[in-house]
């Protein structure tokens, strides 16, 4: 892992007596694409505003490259922000918007012009120098907001749900562009979103947050494949979360039926939760399965069929390219590698709450 750039040390923040962040600790490395992911009200935006200097934490420190910047105002921080809904200066041209930060730094005219040209090229909006922000589409305005931030060569770029207002297709396009820009510029991105797909697509590291706590930090693969608790499992993608008993290492009893798994170290006869992704549930002939059940729902989703199978008293969510009509008797099989064992939540905060996004 590369050098440490940001360290959030024991940050707490409450608004009107309501705890938004509770003793948060987070380290961000240089040149990393970090996504803060969580439902609304989880504290991700507050974390970003603390990084940007727009909110002061009640306790704790913000360390930037070894320097304590907790009380440094936003205009003195070596970072820039791309705001939700763009926040462009509507009374200025695109060129003036982009030049805003550079003029404050008293750069030469030639330097500023070169930078404007370079930035517009980077965001694929060559030739828009003299347009006004209002004459641009939402996607274009967002690109200008990014251009306005990156010309200042910040070491850290904060992005607050920058794609939230765009339609699906544009959002996906911008995701790839952001990855490209990050690689071209070689700066650290901290990205806030409630969209798990966005997080999985773009991030090097995902920080899943809920109710002011970090639930899990990891690569998109590890967050998706090895969620540490039911909240993470439920928030990232669809999943079957089933209460189970860990009988011994590598053997778990799910709905009274024994399944082989690969996890160890949970002890003997310990209650756990298992997570099985819907695409990991294999439907086979009834007698070939470990569990037997009946298909109760069927929806065509384009790439695959989404089915619900009643088996062992649990409604299993199954994704499969093979069609099994409603009413058909099927057997359920799960590869031991695809059974993810999680400890039962110890506190309320870790519980899988209903997600409002």
């Amino acid at each position, binding site marked *: 892992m590369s050098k440490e750039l940001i360290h959030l040390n024991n940050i707490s923040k409450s608004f009107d007596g309501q705890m938004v962040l509770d003793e948060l600790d987070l380290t961000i490395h240089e040149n990393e694409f970090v996504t803060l992911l969580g439902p609304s009200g989880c504290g991700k935006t507050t974390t970003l505003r603390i990084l940007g200097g727009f909110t002061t934490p009640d306790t704790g420190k913000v360390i930037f490259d070894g320097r304590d910047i907790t009380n440094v105002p936003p*205009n003195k921080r070596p970072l820039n922000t791309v*705001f939700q809904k763009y*926040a462009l200066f509507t*009374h200025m041209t695109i060129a003036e918007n982009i030049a805003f930060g550079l003029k404050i730094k008293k750069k030469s005219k030639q330097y500023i012009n070169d930078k404007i040209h370079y930035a517009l090229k980077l965001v694929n909006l060559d030739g828009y120098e003299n347009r006004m922000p209002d004459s641009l589409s939402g996607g274009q305005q967002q690109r200008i907001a990014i251009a306005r931030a990156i010309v200042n060569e910040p070491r850290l770029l904060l992005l607050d749900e920058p794609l939230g207002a765009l339609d699906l297709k544009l959002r996906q396009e911008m995701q790839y562009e952001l990855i490209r820009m990050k690689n071209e510029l070689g700066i650290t991105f901290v990205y806030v979103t409630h969209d798990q797909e966005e997080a999985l697509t773009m991030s090097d590291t995902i920080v899943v947050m809920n109710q002011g706590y970090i639930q899990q930090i990891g690569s998109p693969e590890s967050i998706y494949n090895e969620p540490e608790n039911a909240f993470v499992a439920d928030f990232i993608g669809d999943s079957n979360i089933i209460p189970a008993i860990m009988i011994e290492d590598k053997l778990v009893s799910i709905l009274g039926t024994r399944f082989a798994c690969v996890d160890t170290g949970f002890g003997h006869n310990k209650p756990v939760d298992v997570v099985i992704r819907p695409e990991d549930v294999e439907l086979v002939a009834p007698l070939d399965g470990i569990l037997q059940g009946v298909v109760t729902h069927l929806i065509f989703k384009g790439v695959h069929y989404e089915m619900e199978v009643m088996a062992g008293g649990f409604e299993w969510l199954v994704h499969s390219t093979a069609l099994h009509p409603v009413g058909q008797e099927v057997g359920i099989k799960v590869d031991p590698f695809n059974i993810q064992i999680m400890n039962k939540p110890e506190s309320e905060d870790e519980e899988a709450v209903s997600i409002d996004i």
Partner: protein
Amino acid sequence: MTSKSKWLSAPYALWSVIFIIIPLGMILYYGLTDKTGAFTLDNIIAITTAGHAKALRLSVLLSLVSTLICFLLAYPLAMILANTKTNKHHFIILIFILPMWMNFLLRTLAWQTLLEKNGVINSVLTFLNLPNLKIINTPAAIVLGMVYNFLPFMILPLYNALAKIDKNVINAAHDLGAGSVYTFIRIILPLSVPGIISGITMVFVPALTTFVISALLGGSKLLLIGDVIEQEFTRTSNWHLGSGLSIVLMIFIVINMIASAIFDKDGEGSML
């Protein structure tokens, strides 16, 4: 719009014909004719005579000074109001609108009573053995009356314009390295221009045309153009000259209105 709903505007249309269009027509007629009914521009040109020109100059000067004072008082307040998150700002705005619920004439008369040679303020000053104020019947008294009466008309459009500015736009300016002063000059002030223009119009126009404030607080020596026009109609009974001078005043107002229409596209001033 259906033809049916067009009829809903009939009462107002009738009203405006009787009370706006016809009177304006009459002003134009009287202003551009002499007593024999012949066409003349004399009533318009009369503005250039020494007494009239002096009154117009004084009107413009005092209105400009009052507008400037209103602006300087209102802008900081409007900024504070726009940044007040809670519902408190409704209450604060109410405080500023409250005097407007009282009759304009009464308010001005109250100031007369306060400022008079033997008025309330001077009585208190005498009681405290302090030198008396000689404000009544000076331009300062007229400006005071104008500022007092027209200040709310400056606050509200400014507040509307400032409240509309997205907080993140200001945050973005800070984020890009701008300090408070630079952000104010480059971002907040330009974005509030529509409110500034409406506020200026809404204070300057009534201040320019007033004759009550000057009559009550300025004594008989300080004539504003409004007083001159009033006298032509009521005392001299020279409707032709009065109308001619009114037309000149209207030209000033129309210029101001056009300027405000150009800048205030969003109609911030239409709140009142």
